[in-house]
């Protein structure tokens, strides 16, 4: 049940990325280029998404379990530390380099855009490096 709902959610999420233009790196870079010919469209993507999610989450906060019976796993981390800052800095730099963030990159790769496949392979390598780093740190 949880997996089935996750499947539908993934489809809707992906369609949202395509409809909004987020899956097109040129469009994302047009938004990030505030000093050039700026395309503010992505503000509307973020605004629409946050509006719906904030309203939905406010209602869901009162639930004790999800429809599938799984617990509601709300994030509990609240620390603002160097790890959060450097990670976000690296992510933003990479986002600006190519115009891809994780969701759109997966959608474009699945659509068969060859450069997106290269990006996704490198992204997975970067994530695996993080996992290896964490594993070694834990000893």
């Amino acid at each position, binding site marked *: 049940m*949880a*997996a089935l*709902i*996750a*499947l539908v*959610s993934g489809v*809707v999420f*992906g*369609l*949202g*990325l*395509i409809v*909004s233009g987020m899956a097109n790196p040129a469009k994302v870079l*047009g938004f990030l280029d*505030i*000093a050039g010919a*700026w*395309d*503010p469209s992505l503000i*509307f993507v*973020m*605004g*629409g998404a*946050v509006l*719906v*999610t904030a309203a*939905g*989450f406010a209602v*869901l906060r009162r*639930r004790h379990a*999800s*429809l599938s019976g799984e617990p509601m796993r709300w*994030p509990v*981390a*609240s620390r*603002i530390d160097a790890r959060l800052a450097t*990670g*976000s*800095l690296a*992510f*933003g730099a*990479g*986002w*600006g*380099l*190519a115009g891809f*963030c*994780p969701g759109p*990159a*997966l*959608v474009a790769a699945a659509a068969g855009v060859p*450069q997106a496949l*290269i990006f996704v392979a490198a992204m*997975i390598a*970067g*994530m*695996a*490096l*993080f*996992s290896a780093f964490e594993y070694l740190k834990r000893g």
Partner: protein
Amino acid sequence: MTVDWSAFTPANGAAGGLLIGAAAVLLMLGAGRIAGISGILGGLLPPERGSRWRLAFLLGLCVSPWLYTLGAALPAMVVEAGTGRLILAGLLVGAGTRFASGCTSGHGVCGLSRGSRRSFVATAIFMAAGFAMVYVLRHLVGG
């Protein structure tokens, strides 16, 4: 700053945003999970216990362009970066989002919606870094 009105698509943006929001609400309602793509993918490297929902979500994400083509032609997905830049960008995005525990979806959409200060800081930093990177590439070193 000059707005590129010819590229401006607020209605498509908002419609896509509503779908993204609906997907995030559905995943929490149905599976009790936050729709953060980097976390969902990263949790498979190596696979955490009970990761079937992760695979299902990612499968859905990957079939979405194919379902989209049943109704309309896919919009253009134009990549300007060359191979070297794509690899560097991928490594930065992959490692960076894992260190920060989130990306545009986890922090930017779900975190801001929860009123999380941590996500607000993360979003402000990655947006600023994105703006700065594009400024350097396009206006200082000339792309």
